[in-house]
């Protein structure tokens, strides 16, 4: 089936099978940040934005994204790099496997709620599983990032 998706700002037309997953389609376009973790909608590793909402690309048919915008970490490099530094500073990760999905969903949180409380952070990121950390370092990294944003006079990370 012929579909047309705007991926990270660029319109791409491709021929896909009816059951092709958005995850595989995005990876086939070179967006290797989109990773397959559980493939059962549990881990959050495959998070992308569909239009502006974070979704699990392992559970979306590529045909369902036809005519819509898809954003992956590759399309959010600047925003992501700034934030990821704060996560690294906390040594929040060990293997780093969960990182792409975690960063995507954290950015979705900052867009929706530029000044979240710790409880709001934990609730929003509950669908991003990390096998190595206890989430404490990541929470500290997020809080430091938000404090830095505030100190710079910005309105959180909202764009």
């Amino acid at each position, binding site marked *: 089936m012929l579909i047309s998706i705007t991926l990270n700002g660029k319109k791409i037309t491709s021929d896909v099978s*009816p059951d092709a997953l958005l995850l595989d389609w995005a990876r086939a376009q070179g967006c290797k940040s989109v990773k397959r973790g559980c493939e059962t*909608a549990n881990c*959050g590793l495959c998070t992308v934005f569909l239009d502006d909402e974070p979704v699990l690309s392992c559970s979306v*048919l590529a045909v369902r994204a036809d005519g819509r915008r898809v954003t992956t970490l590759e399309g959010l490099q600047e925003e992501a790099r700034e934030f990821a530094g704060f996560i690294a500073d906390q040594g929040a990760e060990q293997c780093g496997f969960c990182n792409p999905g975690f960063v995507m*969903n954290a950015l979705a949180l900052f867009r929706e709620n530029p000044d979240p409380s710790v409880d709001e952070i934990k609730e929003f990121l*509950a669908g*991003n599983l990390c096998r190595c950390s206890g989430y404490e370092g990541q929470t500290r990294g997020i809080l430091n990032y938000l404090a830095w944003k505030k100190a710079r006079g910005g309105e959180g990370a909202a764009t």
Partner: protein
Amino acid sequence: MLTIQNYKKAESLEDAWTLNQRRGSVILGGMLWLKMGKRTVQTAIDLSGLRLDRIEETPEGWSIGCMTTLRQLELHKGLNAYTNGAVREAVRHIVGVQFRNLATVGGSVWGRFGFSDVCTLLLALDSYVELYKGGNVPLVDFLTREKDRDVLVRVIVKRTPGTFLYRSVRGSQTDFPVLACAAVLVPAENGDRLRLSVGARPGRAVLFQEEAVFRGPISEADAAAFGKAAAEHIATGSNLRGSAEYRSHLIQVLAARAALELGGADRC
């Protein structure tokens, strides 16, 4: 793995219904549950072009299109104001935001899953299921029906007076509930009555309606008696998340707490 041979975006409900009469056809909701199974689908029917992805306020209450996501429910101001936040509380523990941006109300209700927070919540409200051919059916009846090949169009929630509360017990965050419970305090002619919906028993959600009418604040003794009656009345079973005995104990505790929270002297 889900293998799909043909994908069809329905142009109308009639189109969707007709396509769905063929063996091997399947209606897609958010596809999250469907994808867990191993099956070959001849025609996957997508309802996403039918403007059923919205919640509309009506003079009687709310009409929730089948493609409305659980996240839309969670964030809906009107439904949450009416239910004292019970709607949000019911869905906010389901996996994660990215999941709830996909999972639909239609798939959740059609599935009639025993573990369903969504069905447990809706059963406590005055809810109806609008079926394309089958018309409007009270949710309490729909939940006990066998699945057929109709299309679930909307869920209707009527605004009837009541104060609501939702609680679930989970072994760990984002897991299926061990027990789910929605309670309503309904004003009656000469006092208040309590209604309780319990899901993840682990069977499908069922209702328990207390015969007693409470005049004035509910006392600790009344609440305990309500908990005991609910636990005796509602059948539970065992699975790997909990034993029948544990679930019955949870019903007793949650029902008593709900009675006090909704109708006790300290209620806000």
